[in-house]
């Protein structure tokens, strides 16, 4: 037995090389463990028969090889006092009120960090969200009055009062839902503070176990007869464990980050929630439909969303739509929308010019401009060589969600007093215009780009150009950096959370090594890995035993 004062911190890379002269795979022996004799290498025995690494058996105290650690363990002192608990600070006698407050805080924290409460909150939020997708959102009150009538309630009890009173017609901004989210955030923080952070201290401590009984109580436990704890340590290090030994006991762990990462997940969630709050209270939004060639001032269309919304200076920037156009697939369907935008400051100087499209917004001074919609603003036509005239296109609401625009070119008819007759033009997109004569009969289809005139009722009509209007969404969002930081942290920490924290204790009990370990996540993989690693631990046999072994193998 090594003296108990001797710490053995094995440097993973170096010690591994030093102690394992032949890192060969375990021989296909009858018993799983590699056998190493202390004096004579066995001849022609099981597997290989080559000279194996010689490790002295622990029969004499002085013969034990001691491996010195390269650096003093920073936590060695702390680890030494395993039973040394964190001293509780004496509560100061400041006054009853303060104490009461402290007690109330403590009580609130313990209530909030209660796991069943948190789970109930999550269930409630999930339920409300599901309800929010089932009930149509954002309709006028009359809609709900009609759909959930009082005299014929849905499912026998749901009337419009159930929907409108708690604000379930706008679920995701209703006080009930937001309140639950806030409560969940509070629970998150309380849990992080009261449960998770203290766990860090526990996980950081190297706790050696000094009794075989407590080691055997672990999820995984095994005992290796005729083995040495040093060999175990080396093998564990080879498998990526951090290994610490003190006297006859050994402590090893792996994947500590997996233990800490859930804290990071919670903090990231809080960060995302804070960012979302900032978005909800401090952003501006606006949308505008601008015909090609016109301009608008950003500040005119932006509406604040919350009480924290402060208009930045860039709001007096003017946006000019130089051009709006679409690209089409061969089949005629729209492949992409483009808006060529110029931004002018107060002095009329162009500060930016960029073509935006869907999925590629423009960002300027905290303002983001998105391409979201389009319209047909006007048709430029020439009639009998006169013009061009600009005919305003009107959106026609037909069944179906496809867009349809139409316009009308009146024809001077001398004796028309009752009804105006003329040419109707319809278009689904900017690409092709369908023309009908004054009797409503189909005449033909023209492309604005073709410059090909068409003859209708004795008039020569030439479609010069189709002028589209671009639908732009604008926003400022101060919450974005916070939310994105939260997203990044959340992705990273959830990935790390998949790692499992494995801990291992071992105790040299005479010639037997008692091993116990646990893992917080990958339990099966852990026990598989342990079985594999323990098979590699060399078995120390003395001369007498070896002869017995040889006899038995000879028979």
């Amino acid at each position, binding site marked *: 037995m090594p003296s108990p004062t001797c710490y053995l911190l094995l440097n993973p890379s170096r010690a591994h090389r030093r102690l394992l002269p032949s890192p060969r795979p375990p021989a296909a022996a009858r018993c799983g463990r590699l056998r190493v004799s202390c004096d004579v290498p066995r001849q022609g025995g099981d597997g290989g028969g080559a000279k194996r690494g010689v490790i002295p058996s622990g029969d004499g105290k002085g013969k034990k090889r001691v491996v010195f650690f390269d650096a003093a363990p920073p936590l060695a002192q702390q680890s030494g006092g395993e039973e040394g608990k964190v001293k509780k600070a004496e509560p100061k006698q400041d006054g009853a009120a303060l104490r009461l407050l402290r007690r109330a805080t403590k009580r609130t924290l313990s209530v909030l960090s209660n796991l069943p409460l948190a*789970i109930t909150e999550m269930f409630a939020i999930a339920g409300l969200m599901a309800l929010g997708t089932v009930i149509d959102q954002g309709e006028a009150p009359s809609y709900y009055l009609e759909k959930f009538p009082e005299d014929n309630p849905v499912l026998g009890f749901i009337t419009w009062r159930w929907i409108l009173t708690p604000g379930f017609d706008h679920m995701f901004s209703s006080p009930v839902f937001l309140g639950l989210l806030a409560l969940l955030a509070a629970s998150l923080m309380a849990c992080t503070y009261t449960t998770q952070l203290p766990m860090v201290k526990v996980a950081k401590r190297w706790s050696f176990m000094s009794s075989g009984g407590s080691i055997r109580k672990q999820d995984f*436990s095994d005992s290796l007869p005729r083995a040495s704890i040093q060999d175990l340590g080396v093998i564990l290090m080879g498998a990526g464990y951090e290994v610490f030994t003190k006297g006859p006991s050994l402590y090893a762990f792996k994947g500590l980050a997996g233990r800490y990462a859930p804290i990071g997940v919670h903090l990231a969630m809080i960060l995302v929630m804070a960012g979302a709050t900032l978005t909800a209270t401090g952003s501006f939004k606006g949308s505008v439909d601008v015909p090609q060639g016109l301009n608008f001032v950003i500040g005119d269309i932006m509406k604040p969303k919350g009480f924290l919304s402060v208009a930045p200076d860039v709001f007096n920037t003017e946006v000019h739509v130089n051009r709006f156009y679409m690209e089409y697939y061969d089949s005629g369907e729209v492949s992409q929308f483009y808006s060529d935008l110029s931004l002018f400051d107060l002095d009329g100087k162009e500060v930016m010019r960029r073509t935006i499209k869907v999925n590629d917004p423009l960002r300027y001074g905290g303002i983001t401009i998105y391409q979201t919609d389009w319209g047909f603003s006007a048709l430029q036509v020439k009639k009998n060589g006169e013009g061009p005239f600009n005919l305003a296109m009107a959106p026609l609401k037909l069944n179906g969600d496809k867009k349809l625009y139409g316009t009308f070119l009146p024809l001077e008819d001398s004796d028309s007093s009752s009804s105006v007759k003329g040419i109707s033009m319809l278009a689904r997109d900017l690409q092709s215009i369908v023309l009908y004569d004054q009797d409503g009969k189909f005449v033909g289809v023209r492309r604005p780009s073709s410059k090909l005139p068409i003859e209708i009722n004795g008039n020569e009509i030439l479609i010069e150009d189709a002028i589209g209007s671009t639908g732009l969404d604008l926003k400022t969002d101060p919450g*974005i950096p916070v939310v994105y930081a939260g997203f990044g942290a959340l992705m990273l920490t959830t990935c790390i959370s998949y790692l499992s924290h494995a801990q291992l204790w071992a105790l040299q009990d005479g010639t037997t090594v008692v091993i116990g370990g646990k893992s917080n996540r990958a339990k099966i993989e852990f026990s598989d890995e342990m079985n594999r690693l323990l098979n590699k631990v060399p078995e120390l046999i003395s001369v007498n035993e070896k002869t017995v072994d040889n006899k038995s193998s000879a028979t």
Partner: protein
Amino acid sequence: MLFATLEHILTHISFSTISIVITIHLRALLVRELGGLRDSSEKGMIATFFSITGFLVSRWLSSGHFPLSNLYESLIFLSWALYILHTIPKVQNSKNDLSTITTPSTILTQGFATSGLLTEMHQSTILVPALQSQWLMMHVSMMLLSYATLLCGSLLSAAILIIRFRNNFNFFSKKNKNVLKKTFLFSKMEYFYAKRSYFKSASVPSFPNYYKYQLTERLDSWSYRVISLGFTLLTIGILCGAVWANEAWGSYWNWDPKETWAFITWTIFAIYLHSRTNQNWKGTNSALVASIGFLIIWICYFGINLLGIGLHSYGSFTLTPN
């Protein structure tokens, strides 16, 4: 045309191969296991994998975009993801019960994709402007991988529930072949492991630790591992989607039905993961939560698309939010 024929051939090869594979599995289960057949079922899975991969690649080449633009393609991708899940433990060379779940799941998705849907949906569609982004690949593939993983994990949890309450579930097994298969298999295995553990407790104290785990505990542990992985993927998928939405729709969160249901799924599995930290709830309660999650994933993945509501309904998406 060439691509269309190729795709046709490949889907049929994969479907028929996997049908054979499942027949072998069932045979091995109900009658007895034959060593040679077991190998061939593994080979069949590999053949299926190659034909599905071939299908996806040819789709990619012919349409010019990542083949995840409609429900059909996404279902094929889902079965591909299930196969990947089937392979991971094989690579690590660790035995587990996952393949019992993944093989039937693959065939069910495949069968549904190839025969259950309208044939018009099989055509590769053009990409609407909102989908033309690099995020498509990242977001949709992550979501589908996570669906596949979470489905497997929650099926394992459902298996735990079935084993625990087998007597009450007998009527159920008559209806569903898949459940029947599982019930048979697990009762057999349970018996096997019970025998092992009996030996262990009786006489052999140093019996390998591996058998310390009862079957349900193993299933529980596996389902926990698989669901954790799926949860990680789901988190990444949702967050990628949020970043994309901030590029395309003007806000990182729109409370669109699909988004909301993805968040509900996330919440349910977060509840599962939290319920595991409590010793009393581990087991039946958490398995129940995971089984609820199974239904939720299907609502999220399928229900919303079939209803065609919200921004995520790609078939009818015409650049008119609100």
